[in-house]
Structures are given as C-alpha cells and as structure tokens.
C-alpha cells in the first residue's frame, strides 16, 4: 500500500473518542506465528537485548536542542537542563558523549548522570574552578563529586567556601597529582588498600564521598589552615595514610609549598568553536550517506562475510505486518511481559506530557486462531484503555 493510501485510510478513521475503550483501534505491528519462543525472544529484543539504548548524553542533547533550536520552553525540566549546560559552557566546560572524538579537548566531561544531580550553584562553582585552574584538561567526574559535597556541606554548616581554600586545593592537586584525574586514581588505590587492611576483605565497596574526604585530609596534612566543616572530615580519616609514601613524605618539609598553585599558560580551547551543542542545527543526512559510512567499516564487512559463510538470506516473508487492531482484541501473556507498573502508567498519562502523537506501535504475534498477543507495549495499551475508560460518559462516574 502506498504512503498516500495509508494516510488516506488513517484520515478516514473515526476520530471521536470511543465510548467503549475496547473498540479503539491502535496501530499494531505483528508477525503471524504460533511460536511462543519467538514472542519471548521478541520481548527481550524490544526491551533491551539487541537494542542500542539512548545514552544520558543523548537525552541531555535532545533537551538542549529543543530549547535552543526549536525555541520550545514548555517543559520545565528541559529548560532547567539547558540552563545548567549554559552555566558549564560559560565556564568553557562541555558535556560530550562517551567514546567521543572530542574527549581529547580541555573542559569536556562525559558523566552526565552526576552532572544532572548537581544544582546550578554546584555546577557554577565546579566548572568555574576547573576553568580557572585546570583549563588545560578534561573534567574528571571526581571534580563533580568533590564540589557537590563541598558546596552542600559548607552551606549546611553555614560556613564560607573561601577563594583561598579553592586555590589551595587546586595547588595541592597540581603539585601532588597534576590534576583531578590522577588524584582520583591515587585516591581509589589508597582507599582500596585501606579497605583491605581495615576489613580484611577483597570485595571493595567504593564510596564517592572518599574523593572529597581524601582531598581535605591531605589538605590538612600539608598544613592547610582554612576552616572545613567537620562533617566532611569525619569520613575514614586514616585512609590517606595509604597514599604513596613518596607523596606523604613531601609533607615533612615545607608542606605549605604544596598548596601553592602555579599558573599554567592558557591556550584557546577548540571546544568553544566545535561544541556540538552550540553548533546544532536541523541538519539531515540521507540513508545513503549513513550506509556509505557503514559499509566501509571492518566490523560491518566482517558481519557481511559471516552472512555469506552461513548462507544467510533476507526472508521477505518474515517481515512484520501492520494493521489497526481493537484494544479489546489484544491479550497480554503474563509470562512474556513484565508485571504492569501502575506508577509508570500514571507517569505516561501525565497531562503535562501525554500526547497521542507519541503513541508507540504495539508489537504482537498473531496466532493461527486469530489472537493478537502483545510482545511489547502493554503499558501503552493499558494507558489508552485507562484514559478512555476514565473519560467515557458511561464509566467516568465509577472513577473517583
């Protein structure tokens, strides 16, 4: 069927809300089969196995692009994300995808999950500190953990996070570790040794609070005098004794020298010009462009060699069919799909977000006795049924 015909057919569908949810027709993609093994496997593939999940960076990029390119500010969460990214960019810090070609540039970071958990103030202080003292290297996630704890505990204790402390911490990191990346590695090594020694256990339980605790204990060992909230120092203070001896011995003579930060000449950061979140546009590429890139790769060529070796053929009969199916005609096999998550359903139907345009095509198998058994989409189907049931003149009185 041509696209025109399908669109005309869709246009002809009765767009009135159904009185009975069972009669509402949804788009359904199905395979005619009686193989339940296929259905189970299909559920696994459609829900993770074999599917490339969306990364945290992609979610962030989408939110930023919606605000920046599309100028759509209707979603508070997206606006908040864009604002936080702008704070970081203003300090020459840039979120990028893991394994990105951009990881060699200063100021980039990949740990989006931790970034998302930070407040605007924490992002401002962490990224401006990075830009002031370590403008020549990527941001290590340890920086985010350190500043998240520092800002929260100083505020909670009603103490001032002084510029002097920030500079001396930078000095300590520079003179002892050449920055946060090596500090983080050394900190984990020391923590491992301490943990094994303390608990006689090989199963390490890393604690992200150790980043800030180790740094502040080292700060005091090297003669740092700025006030620090006791809550930040209560964490396993003796673990710093497990840092390298050649580092700890430096505290024996003129330790304050190691708190002095030495300027590093600033060079232009290429990310300012090539930051993908600043340069984003509604650029499109053809499938042909994508395919041309794909077929050149060794991984693809090896896969195609395997097709030949195994005499694999593309079986046209195995392509799924698409049809409009009444909700009432679809059944859900409890052994294939997960338990219904009612809270997830309520989130899907959130009036601020719900949009029929985002409805997913249901995935089913159609057995020879004409049953449509859902392999993916039970939450979508149940939410639709729930909405029509709850809005229907006949049944809405039952809904309290």
């Amino acid at each position, binding site marked *: 069927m041509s696209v025109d015909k399908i669109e005309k057919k869709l246009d002809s569908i009765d767009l009135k809300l159904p009185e009975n949810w069972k009669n509402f027709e949804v788009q359904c993609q199905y395979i005619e089969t009686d193989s339940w093994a296929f259905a189970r496997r299909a559920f696994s593939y459609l829900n993770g196995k074999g599917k490339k999940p969306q990364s945290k960076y992609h979610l962030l990029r989408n939110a930023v692009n919606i605000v920046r390119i599309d100028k759509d500010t209707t979603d508070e969460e997206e606006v908040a994300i864009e604002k936080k990214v702008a704070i970081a960019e203003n300090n020459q810090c840039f979120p990028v995808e893991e394994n990105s070609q951009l990881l060699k540039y200063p100021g980039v970071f990949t740990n989006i999950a931790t970034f998302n958990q930070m407040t605007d103030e924490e992002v401002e202080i962490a990224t401006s500190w990075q830009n002031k003292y370590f403008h020549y290297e*990527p941001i290590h996630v340890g920086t985010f953990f350190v500043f998240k704890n520092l800002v929260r505990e100083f505020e909670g204790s009603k103490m001032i996070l002084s510029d002097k402390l920030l500079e001396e911490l930078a000095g300590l990191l520079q003179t002892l570790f050449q920055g946060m990346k090596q500090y983080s590695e050394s900190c984990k090594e020391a923590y491992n040794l301490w943990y094994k020694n303390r608990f006689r256990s090989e199963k390490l339980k890393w604690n992200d609070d150790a980043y800030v605790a180790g740094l502040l204990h080292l700060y005091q060992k090297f003669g740092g005098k700025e006030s620090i909230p006791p809550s930040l120092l209560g964490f396993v203070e003796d673990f710093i004794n497990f840092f390298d001896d*050649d*580092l700890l011995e430096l505290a024996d003579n003129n330790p304050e020298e190691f708190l002095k930060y030495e300027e590093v*000449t600033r060079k232009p950061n290429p990310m300012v010009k090539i930051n993908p979140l600043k340069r984003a546009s509604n650029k499109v590429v053809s499938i042909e462009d994508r395919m041309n890139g794909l077929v050149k790769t060794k991984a693809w060529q090896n896969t195609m060699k395997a097709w030949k070796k195994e005499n694999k053929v593309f079986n046209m009969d195995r392509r799924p069919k698409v049809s409009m199916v009444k909700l009432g005609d679809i059944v859900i096999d409890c052994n294939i799909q997960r338990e219904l998550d009612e809270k997830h359903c309520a989130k899907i139907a959130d009036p601020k977000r719900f949009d029929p345009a985002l409805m997913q095509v249901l995935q089913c198998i159609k057995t020879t006795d004409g049953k449509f058994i859902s392999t993916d989409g039970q939450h979508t189907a149940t939410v639709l049924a729930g909405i029509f049931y709850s809005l229907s003149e006949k049944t809405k009185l039952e809904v309290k």
Partner: protein
Amino acid sequence: MYHLYIVENPKGRVGFGIAKDYVERNQFYCGHAGDILKFPVVYGGLRSHAKALEKTIKTELYDDIWTIEKENKDWKTEWLIKGKNRKFLESYINNLIEDRHIKLKIITRDYDFTQE
C-alpha cells in the same frame, strides 16, 4: 622514584610507557622484540606525576596513537603512528613538563640494558 620513558623500535616507531624499574622494562621490550630497543629518553620523578603525564599523552595525542583494529573493540597501543618521531614526542613531553610544572626530570638518554 618512578619513570616515564620514550621507546623506539629499530624501524623508528616511537612509543612511551611508565615503570618503576626501567632497566627491567627495557629487558622486557628487548626480549619480546628479539632485538635491542633503545629508550631515547627516561624521565624520573613522582609516581603520580609520571602516571598523570602518561594519561595526558594518551588523551591529547589520541589521534596520533597507533590503533590496531580488532573485531569488537579497537586496541589503542602505546606506540605512535608512523611519521611521529622521537623528536616530536620528546619535544611534546618537554613542553608539557615545563608548561604544567610537572615534577619529572630527564635522568638518562639513549638507554638500553646492555649498558649496565
């Protein structure tokens, strides 16, 4: 003391690495290659600084590192691509040491274990 070294194979490809015992490390290289391999420069200093500098090389020279394509995941070696010679790598490391106040100093040049 910890060390960061530049290594050069008989065909002129250069690489880098870190080791506590650079003498033993040079013996390993020679044993694998079946030939004498030189360490054109060996730097010595704090372990944390040697490790940090090695990380910086891997990050900043990402495009200049010789990568061996493998089925699932490419293998980034600790050798540079052809065309990047010892002069390039030594000059890059020396500049980093000076610009970023890295506590490493050259302790020997053109080293191989037969000199011991």
